């Protein structure tokens, strides 16, 4: 099983053209069965549009999911796919990637799948920095089981299993990823399609674990969960688009920004008291994740919701480390010889 790998480097653009793949090549023959109007459709469309840009042959893509609405995703991608069990997709994906590091492996998960039942696997895949592209569809509800609160549901949320309101403190997916030392962390919004596509592409081009949270509307059980900031008319004022190396500005005329006072961020108006120079400058590649973490703590409505790439750093990738260790051992000790191995240790002969 030796496959020719296509490494994701910039100088391979010629190869990308040669593959002649487009969106349609990635649409499977399966009828999509999400509820009409579900945010999942948009994520699927952006994914199918984005993957041909990666310069990877179609047969080298593997989409792996757990259980939940989002986890039906692999069925709709005309690639290799594995719809595994609840919460465990990162584990399966780690095995796939280690067994064949030339594969381009995506993990599609949701807030329940990835953060509740599968929280353990998520953090361990991230801390190992396995080259997986993890896309977490966060709709703050259990959709497939018909409307119970999820680990990202707000305090007080009334759902089928919390008729008196949820008393669970919600978890912040990006904080978890950063705490697990994620090397690529981003957030996008289902209906902001262009930005979503760009974010997915940047994540896919990252070597190591990339973690993307996508705010996804479940129009059946949690409709409008993100409307306060995702609606087209509100986005300019309520969403902060992070751009590497640029000051953090938002508002219709970019008249507002994020500055820092002591350890605390604050929203400031550019004008009399503050100038652009006073604003925080985004830097994705700081070795310490403090800034990225601070950004994950900007809570709506006191702050705009940051989207884009929070963090993007280079660290040794797990399947590379695994392969390197084998190569080093083979170089030092020579390739394994089965006959020698069987005959090793204390032996004696009976005649």
């Amino acid at each position, binding site marked *: 099983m030796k496959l020719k790998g296509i490494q994701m480097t910039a100088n391979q653009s010629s190869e990308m053209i040669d593959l002649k793949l487009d969106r349609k090549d990635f649409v499977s023959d399966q009828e999509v069965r999400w509820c009409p109007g579900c945010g999942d459709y948009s994520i699927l469309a952006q994914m199918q549009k984005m993957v041909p840009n990666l310069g990877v042959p179609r047969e080298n893509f593997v989409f792996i999911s757990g259980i939940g609405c989002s986890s039906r995703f692999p069925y709709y991608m005309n690639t*290799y796919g*594995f719809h595994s069990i609840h919460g465990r997709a990162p584990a399966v994906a780690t095995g796939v990637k280690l067994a064949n590091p030339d594969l381009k492996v995506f993990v599609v998960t949701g807030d329940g799948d990835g953060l509740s039942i599968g929280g353990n696997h998520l953090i361990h895949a991230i801390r190992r920095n396995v080259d997986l592209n993890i896309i977490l569809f966060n709709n703050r509800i259990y959709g497939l089981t018909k409307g119970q609160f999820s680990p990202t549901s707000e305090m007080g949320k009334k759902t089928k299993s919390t008729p008196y309101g949820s008393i669970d403190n919600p978890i912040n997916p990006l904080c978890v990823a950063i705490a697990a030392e994620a090397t690529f962390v981003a957030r996008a919004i289902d209906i902001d399609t262009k930005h979503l596509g760009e974010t997915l592409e940047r994540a896919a081009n990252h070597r190591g674990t990339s973690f993307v949270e996508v705010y996804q509307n479940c129009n059946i059980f949690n409709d409008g969960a993100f409307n306060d900031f995702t609606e087209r008319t509100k986005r300019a004022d309520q969403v902060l688009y992070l751009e590497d190396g640029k000051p953090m500005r938002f508002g219709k005329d970019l008249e507002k920004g994020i500055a820092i006072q002591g350890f605390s961020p604050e929203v400031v108006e550019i004008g009399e008291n503050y100038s652009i120079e006073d604003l925080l400058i985004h830097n994705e590649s700081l070795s310490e994740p403090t800034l990225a973490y601070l950004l994950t703590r900007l809570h709506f409505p006191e702050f705009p919701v940051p989207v884009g790439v929070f963090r993007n750093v280079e660290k040794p990738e797990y399947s590379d480390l695994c392969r390197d260790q084998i190569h080093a051992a083979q170089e030092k000790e020579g390739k394994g010889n089965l006959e020698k191995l069987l005959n090793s240790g204390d032996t004696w002969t009976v005649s």
Partner: protein
Amino acid sequence: MSTETELSTPTMETQKPTVEIQSAVIRFAGDSGDGMQLTGTQFTNTTAVFGNDISTLPDFPAEIRAPAGSLPGVSGFQINFGSQEIRTPGDRPDVLVAMNPAALKVNLADLVEGGTVIVNEDSFQASNLDKAGYESNPLDDGSLEGYRVIRIPLTTLTLNAIKDTGLDRKQGQRCKNFFALGVVYWMYDRPLDHTLNWIQSKFGRNPAVLEANTAALKHGFNYAETTEIFTTHYSIRKASLAPGKYRNLTGNQAIALGAVTAMEKSGRELFYGSYPITPASEILQELSRYKKFGVKTFQAEDEIAAIGAALGASFAGGIGLTGTSGPGVALKGEFIGLAVMTELPLVIVNIQRGGPSTGLPTKTEQSDLFQAIYGRNGECPVPVIAACSPGDCFWSVLEAFRIAMKYMTPVMLLSDGYLANGSEPWRIPSLEDLPDLSFPNATDQDTFQPYARDEKTLSRPWAIPGTPGLEHRIGGLEKQHLTGNVSYDPQNHDNMVRLRAKKVAGIAQDIPPTEIYGDPEGDALIVGWGGTRGAITSATEQLRAKGLAVSSIHIRHINPLPPDLTDIFSRFKKVFVAEINLGQLWTYLRATLLLDSISINQVRGKPFMIQEIMKKVEEQL
């Protein structure tokens, strides 16, 4: 080398008379920190290389270091060796080496009547006696009457032996297990070379410790030779094993070797996903040493991830293996179901231990048979095979992988704590003796259907990511026949459930005829599975020697069962099923083959004694 001495080939030069015997059982027992496992292993390897047949039973507490001198802290290692075929570690030791009062207290009851006790006299002082719960000193109060007691001031003698090495008292005392080993080597006329070489390679970088252990071992040997306490020593001839090259192997080492062999013979990469658990962790440790073979080992965050990653590796075309013990299998259940549904090859090794729950982690049991056969949701057939000796673990892994790949199915391989840690001489196979495990991947774009089936095996194609044109999706939802698309169709589900069951049942076509030990018909047949083979075979042998018409069989393939069992059972008046649980195989045979049989069972965390099987059979004949 400084360890070359006049003592390295002592056999012929000794002054005292030698008595030839056929076999002996020795148990070394002491505190967890006394190095009893090491001592036992050294005796085992020396004896194996010497050419005796051998079987061992390490027995250690679950606590790493229980309080020194306490009863729970006692660790033991039993060795049965002889010139005849040795199948079990021995019912009862002939010689007990007790390093402290607690070790004596825990082990004395097992000793044969009139057996020999070698004690470290120095350790029988008030505080240790107290910790062991002795009200008076058993060495003096007559309670050891009926045994041959050899009192050796092991601590004092060891400290004398090592006084020139520069080690302090505390370090020096640690060498006393080597002194004791030297004594026992003399008693059984064993050469010191093997252990001296081992000490050299282990402590070569630490001259003081090297010298001290060497001195302790030699002084022990000399002490036995020169003092008058020991009048005779015993010699045991080499066993007449089948010709060939041998090495000593524990069950867990055998599994690791077998897995590397399966990798080489299949031409695929081995992926071992595991989470540390007693008594399976050695497999992970062993396999992680075989990097130069390209073995990929993955110590996962938990049992579930361990099997999930192994299944992912199989999906990607490697051979996935995961090893654990019963509690771990409980956690892996959902993934085993997924492997059944996605019809991917995977081997799950269960080194059974005492249960339920955490149970007896370091003790052996066979109580996960139901779990192996039935322990999942849905109609979820999984082939189950069981290894029957430490060395057989090697062959069982190969068989498990063969079934897994040929039939595209997860396979459960059962071992147990006794097989895992116990050892026996293993005849090293030549490469030609090994089965070919190459099974092709699917490549044909024109005919490919993910759930099309091979006519003979009913297995589906193995189409691995990276193969152009075979892109497809699999998962845990019910599959449509042929296309593999998700299907909720009632008739399709019924068909698929039956197909999966039929596929696994069809593995029976590969099972060779069952070997019968003894005559093919008679008054009684003893049926066993797994690690009890040695005890059952020996019991059968001894019952036959008494003139009883008893035979025995050992079942390796448990699901599906060998097709010839009903015929065999019909030729015996009574059938006994012996196992270390409350009758799981007994129930299974009754359920599947309507076999009316008698259950012989015990669940003490220990292997069967030959005598207890014999007694149960004799009572009923």
